[in-house]
């Protein structure tokens, strides 16, 4: 047998009696044995299996116990945290109320203040903060009856109105911003302008221009009573209000939309309303379908 094979067999402790004799005859025999013996001194430290096993078992048992109470506690804590945040989130959300075309609505605020909302308008306020902060955002037109209390703020894109307890109307449409005070006193802020309105006073801004007006005699805006009234108002605004109240689209043909209109139309009779806005200006109307109307000159 080759030397290499003998050595390999020796390494694996597989030498039979004869092979062992042959191995002992090898030149390297002494060297190999010395090497093999000396290597023993590099033995790994003692390993006490039963002791180590105990340590391992202790560890897994204590882990079991500590994990067992922790998991249900964590689950409960997670559910509580989640429900609390959902509750908090939903109760602190802003309240949004909108009207569509041909729709009006009444709103009562947490402090008993009342708002009448005209068609195609939106108000936004925060119920949970109402006690300390009476802030409302308005897009469109609304009539406010504010109970006495802390400052009442209405914010629109054109300007803001602050009152303490009073009745006033705010109309904010495209390029049109109007505040009419019916009772109490109203502070209007527009850009850097501040105006204080007394009952009957109004603040009107059309296309960026402040327009002076006569004193308002009525006790509340006419639209509350389902009638839109205009005094020397550019006809385009009349048309737009008509569209809002009746949920129609008006197609003016070759009409001067800047001409001033004085008059009114009712909200509950389309034919009559159309006559009200066309006759004074010598205009004709024709109904296309339920939704569209064409106005033309006579």
């Amino acid at each position, binding site marked *: 047998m080759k030397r290499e094979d003998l050595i*390999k067999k020796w*390494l694996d402790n597989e030498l039979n009696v004869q092979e062992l004799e042959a191995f002992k005859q090898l030149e390297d025999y002494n*060297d*190999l044995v010395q090497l093999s013996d000396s290597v023993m001194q*590099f033995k*790994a430290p003692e390993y006490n*299996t039963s002791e*180590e096993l105990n*340590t*391992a078992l202790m560890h897994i048992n204590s882990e079991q116990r500590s994990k067992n109470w922790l998991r249900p506690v964590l689950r409960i804590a997670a559910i509580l945290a989640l429900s609390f945040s959902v509750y908090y989130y939903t109760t602190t959300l802003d309240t949004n109320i909108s009207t569509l075309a041909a729709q009006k609505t009444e709103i009562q605020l947490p402090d008993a203040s009342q708002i009448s909302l005209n068609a195609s308008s939106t108000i936004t306020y925060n119920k949970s903060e109402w006690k300390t902060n009476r802030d409302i955002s308005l897009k469109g037109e609304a009539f406010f009856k504010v109970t006495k209390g802390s400052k009442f703020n209405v914010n629109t894109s054109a300007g803001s109105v602050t009152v303490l307890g009073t009745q006033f109307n705010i109309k904010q449409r495209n390029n049109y911003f109007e505040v009419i005070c019916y009772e109490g006193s109203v502070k209007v802020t527009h850009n850097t302008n501040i105006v204080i309105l007394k009952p009957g006073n109004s603040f009107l801004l059309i296309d960026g221009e402040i327009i002076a007006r006569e004193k308002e005699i009525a006790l509340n805006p006419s639209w509350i009573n389902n009638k839109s009234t205009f005094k020397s108002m550019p006809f385009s605004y009349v048309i737009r209000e008509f569209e809002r109240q009746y949920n129609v689209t008006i197609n003016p043909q070759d009409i001067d939309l800047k001409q001033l209109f004085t008059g009114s139309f009712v909200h509950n009779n389309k034919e009559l309303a159309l006559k009200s806005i066309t006759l004074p200006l010598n205009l004709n109307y024709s109904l296309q379908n339920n939704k569209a109307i064409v106005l033309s000159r006579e």
Partner: protein
Amino acid sequence: MNIDISDNICNENLFSTLFTKYSKSLHDFLYYKFGESFNPKDKVQDAFIKLWENCNTISPNKAKSYLFTVANNLMLNEAAHQKVVLKYKNVKPKTSTNETPEFILEGNEYMKKLQSAIANLTEAQRTAFLLNRIEGKKHREIAELLDISTKAVEKRIYGALKKLREDIKGI
């Protein structure tokens, strides 16, 4: 004790059996491969605990591979392939009969050369060689522990032997 493949390791008895069967081999393997610096005993504990934590997903016949792989990785995270120099105890080799100072000096020098030579082996060679020579493991046993062929084990051990002898003669 017969371990059924369908048995679940999440059972203290089975776990203990596996521990008794593999812990020392694992410990020695880690020691010979990585030395003592990174606490082979702790890594054995950690590997078995990981086995317990994952006891639902490991079948008993995969336990050994799992343990060796996990322990090896735990070590690598710390040891990162540093050169391993094993210590030796200054015990007189069996074959020496004389105690002249000269012989003892020679003995010390020999041990130093041997230590250096062992440190120069590859991890694979060193581990297989020492498990065989010191722990008396057969080639087949080592093959099973390391998930390699018996032939591969033989090659590593013989290669180690050859290299050691050359190194010692050469230095």
